[in-house]
């Protein structure tokens, strides 16, 4: 190769490299059309998806957070290998380090944030386009947010409403009733919204959840700071909602319910995954009997009058197992948030707390009639009947621990040194993952 040829080839190589380099610069400077940023979901086209996303996160959260709450109660028991479940079973409710309190906590934060975000997004869009569809989306967002706030208020001892990376101070145990108040406010907005667009079915759902939330608000007062009185609550507002729900659902005989649903297309039911699939926990032996392999093989909880397997327990367990309570069950059973049975038990308790024995009996018997049971007519003590009917009516619905606290019921598995025994009324704490990330929360493990 002579010098001229070399220079020619070298120049061509340099030019090619320069061209390639320029090309690479352009090549890497692209916008991915699949990228989504937060602003993209603040559009009318995305409104329904944002609300559906909130529902999925709220549903997932509820299925995760109810389990530690119920394992601590006498509804579920530990049968597996993970000792943090055992700790809950023994009544150590107030342990921020418990992995099964810690695990669901982020999901609760996500469900709370996303449902509030959905309200914010859709509320803004309604201002631009006040169509019935958009208003229905806003009502749904309020319903789902209301559900999330209600569950937080029912099962948490404390909570922090942080916003993305901005840590918020904790609400404080003594102020957690405000979370239930916020739930009721959101549910009221939802009801008004559904009524405005003429969606009676969704208004019924929201009304039933509000009845539950209002009773839970009254229960909160009874169990905080410590359980007091006879544990009975009498919420006129909850009663009014309950009456309205029963009427709208078809009358006293109507056996209606409102469920959170799960599927492969949305989210799995975490609690069912742990119980039906992994078999880490199981129904308490006071509720259902089990084989040596810890599979349910019968009903332990009997109706106190007819002394038969309690039909309500069978009803809820059939739903839990996807057909028959003797089945293995799957990971997608629905979770019931409210029902006409729950409405009747709210009204029955209101009546008993108010000294109205006839109305108490009437509503107890509406539930019993749904299952063909002998009417109650004083065969056992009224309080005993209420407590039994409440237990079987709200089984697997995330309410048992508060009921145990307010009525002074202890689980046989609770240890004398446990939080549930030492500090009755104590609920699930802000877990360690939030404590480490939130500078507003003292690294203080000893609430109880």
């Amino acid at each position, binding site marked *: 190769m002579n010098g001229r040829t070399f220079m020619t080839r070298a120049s061509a190589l340099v030019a090619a490299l320069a061209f390639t380099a320029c090309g690479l610069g352009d090549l890497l400077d692209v916008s991915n059309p699949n990228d989504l940023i937060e602003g993209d979901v603040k559009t009318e086209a995305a409104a329904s998806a944002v609300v559906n996303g909130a529902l999925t996160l709220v549903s997932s959260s509820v299925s995760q957070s109810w389990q530690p709450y119920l394992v601590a109660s006498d509804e579920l028991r530990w049968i597996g*290998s993970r000792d943090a479940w055992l*700790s809950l079973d023994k009544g150590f409710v107030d*342990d921020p*380090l418990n*992995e099964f309190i810690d695990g669901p906590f982020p999901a609760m934060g996500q469900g709370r944030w996303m449902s509030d975000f959905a309200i914010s997004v859709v509320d803004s869009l309604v201002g631009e386009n006040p169509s019935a569809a958009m208003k229905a989306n806003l009502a749904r967002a309020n319903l789902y947010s209301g559900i999330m706030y209600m569950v937080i208020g029912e099962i948490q001892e404390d909570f922090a409403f942080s916003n993305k990376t901005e840590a918020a101070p904790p609400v404080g145990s003594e102020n957690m009733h405000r979370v239930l108040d916020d739930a009721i406010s959101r549910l009221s907005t939802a009801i008004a919204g559904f009524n405005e667009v003429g969606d009676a079915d969704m208004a019924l759902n929201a009304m039933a959840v509000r009845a539950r939330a209002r009773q839970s608000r009254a229960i909160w007062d009874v169990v905080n700071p410590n359980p007091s009185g006879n544990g009975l609550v009498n919420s006129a507002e909850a009663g009014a909602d309950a009456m309205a729900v029963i009427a709208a659902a078809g009358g006293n005989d109507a056996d209606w319910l409102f469920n959170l649903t799960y599927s492969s297309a949305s989210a799995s039911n975490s609690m069912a995954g742990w119980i039906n699939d992994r078999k880490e926990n199981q129904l308490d032996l006071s509720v259902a009997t089990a084989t040596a392999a810890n599979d349910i093989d019968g009903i332990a909880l009997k109706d106190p009058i007819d002394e038969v397997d309690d039909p309500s327990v069978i009803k809820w367990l059939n739903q839990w197992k996807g057909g028959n309570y003797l089945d293995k069950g799957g990971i997608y059973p629905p979770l019931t948030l409210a029902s006409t049975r729950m409405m009747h038990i709210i009204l029955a308790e209101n009546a008993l707390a108010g000294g109205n024995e006839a109305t108490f009996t009437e509503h107890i018997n509406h539930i019993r009639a749904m299952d063909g049971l002998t009417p109650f007519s004083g065969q056992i003590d009224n309080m005993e009947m209420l407590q039994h009917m409440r237990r079987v009516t709200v089984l697997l619905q995330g309410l048992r621990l508060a009921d145990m606290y307010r009525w002074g019921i202890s689980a046989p598995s609770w240890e004398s040194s446990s939080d549930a025994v030492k500090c009755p009324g104590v609920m699930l704490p802000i877990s360690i*993952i939030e404590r*480490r990330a939130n500078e507003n929360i003292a690294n*203080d493990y*000893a609430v109880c």
Partner: protein
Amino acid sequence: MGGAPPLKTGGTYPRYRNFLTVGYAPAAFFGAKLAGSDLAEIPLNILAPVGGECVAPTRQQALEYFSQPRDPSSFKPLAIGNSDFGTPNGKLASHNCGSGLLDSYLGKPTPDFAGSFGFNIAFAGNFELNSLLEYKLGHQVQDLSGMFRRANGFIGRNTPRSAELYSIMVNPASSAEQRLDAAVSWAEEIEGLSPMSGMNGIYDADWVQWRELSLVYRIPTSFVESWGLSTATMNLGVRNLKLFMLGDYPGMDPEGNVLGRCNGGLSCNFLDSTEGWGIPVPRRVTLSTRVTF
């Protein structure tokens, strides 16, 4: 870390103790550490907390507590409290008192030194001796399988030492002194897993592994050619011949880890030197022949 809080590997699973946090080696171990005698003469949490603070018992109080048989599940040790990660607060912590129970620095999985060395010696004309040794110095490993065997009340406590201490504590014929001594030993050697995650589980794990020793014999050409071959060698080798533990690690294999290869994420990258759910690297003896033609 851009202001991020300490990041824990393994999600909420409390037995994995590797963290990413400012000021410490990547994947440093944090967990519960038994309180020393400067904080508690008897490091056992057997008295009710006062105002949320742990109370260390006197010897007399401890003897009173152990005047009857006690299952080790009924009490927990007293550990060092912390105000932040790796920052002792001078107080005690346990499962129901104090703060910063799981924030004590327990070591790091990445070694200060790691490498290999060996030799290759030809001798007696057709023989060759090869050897390779590997080492890791200046790191700690969590013996999670061992923690289960020693401490878990349901699927463990089946090591001789666990059984020995357990039997003393629950034996009505034991004296209070014997039970107390066994309980302190239990706290110092056995107690672990949740809620005392990390305790008695993370050890100095310096090691030298005699990775390979092989003897090669080159079969003389006169034989090989008569067989119609160009060359032939025979190789007798041993892999993982001997593990020399220089630290106090009691587990099966300090090279084990709960995770193998996986695709990115905090745990794939930093959940390290935590031995569990596996079996040790086996010793392997091979005899092979290599021919060319």
